[in-house]
């Protein structure tokens, strides 16, 4: 499936920690943890939006990877 736009609320839930999801791809685990830490403790404006862009970029770049496709399906098509 195609990577949903940044406006999809799932991205925000992931970055803020409202939605806890165990990714199967190591890059997503490492990147999301870093983003969540920054989003939680940084006072810089735009940090959440930047985190959403970063996470989505990983999915776009790795959209051909089966594990990423599976995570996309689980997250965005009600598979959770």
């Amino acid at each position, binding site marked *: 499936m195609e990577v949903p736009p940044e406006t999809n609320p799932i991205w925000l839930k992931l970055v803020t920690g409202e939605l806890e999801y165990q990714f199967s791809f*190591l890059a997503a685990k*490492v990147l999301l943890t870093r983003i969540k*830490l920054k989003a939680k*403790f940084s006072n810089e404006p735009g940090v959440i939006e930047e985190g959403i862009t*970063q996470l989505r970029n990983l999915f776009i770049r790795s959209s051909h990877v089966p594990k990423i496709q599976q995570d996309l399906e689980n997250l965005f098509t009600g598979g959770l």
Partner: protein
Amino acid sequence: MEQTLVEKEIVNEMIASGQPLLLAAEEEVLAQLPAGNWIAGTIPYFMTKEGGKITKDKIFVSQLPEYATKYKIQEYTADTIKNVYSDAPENGFSVIIIPASSPIHLRFALEAPDYLNFAITPLIGWISGIHLDNLGSQKPLVVNGLTTTSSDSSAVVMHVELPVGKYAEIKILNIFAEGSGDTISFLGDGFQVTDAIINGETRNFAAYIKEKELDTRLPLVANYSGAKINISFQSVNDDGTVDFYAPVFKNMEYKHAQSIENYVLSFISQMPTEDLDNIAFSCNCILNFLYSELEGKKTGGVVGPITFGEVAYQLLNQTLAYLTITDV
């Protein structure tokens, strides 16, 4: 995708054929190699199919697959290492070798998560080292095979593009898990700390370690959304400071690892058995080699240099890191 420990003469032939190579060996051996499409780091410790080995004469070779025909060797300084993720190909991977205890080692360890495109493309690699008997008298090096020049202050990287239909994935094997003890966090980022926040209370970390008699062979473990990431202890010092082999990060929560009854058995039982034919590169930590007493012991099919630190997107400790290439 062959990974083997071989004689210098065989490596000479491989270099002459023009194929891209990832090498690991002692400084003296690497200095005798001709120019070619290779990068290398210094180390005398290896995991081989026959078990853990220490050798001053042989070279560990990771040959890239034949279809990896587009690649680029680049050197990075402490000032340019921030570009390492952005320079990676659209579909492929990058292998980095960094000399231990150099400014670029410290800088990469601390800053990598903030670099542009961090974790967007696979970056795997290792921290080069020396024989432990030579600590203080010899420097870890990396070598750019294009020029055969060595450096104790730059990193070498091979960026490799993969054809459509293939993808690279970095995986790790960490035998350690978070213990059930105190939650530990720190006031800042760094390789050295004085104070820690233990269950919300700030106190001297060295004193805490001594009071609790923590086994410092066991790392601190952070949970990265399900991935266990270690920070290994280097020393607990009389001046109240504690040194680590990788930086702790502010606000990250750590737990001291659960104790392990038998390091070797833990290691062997968790070794990957699938994917072995797809592994293009792998490396394991010197602390696993030492604490598990791996010299002469077989640990399954994953082989490679034993390192002073592993890179799987960011710097790791006490972890086996490996890269697989798979058909989509």
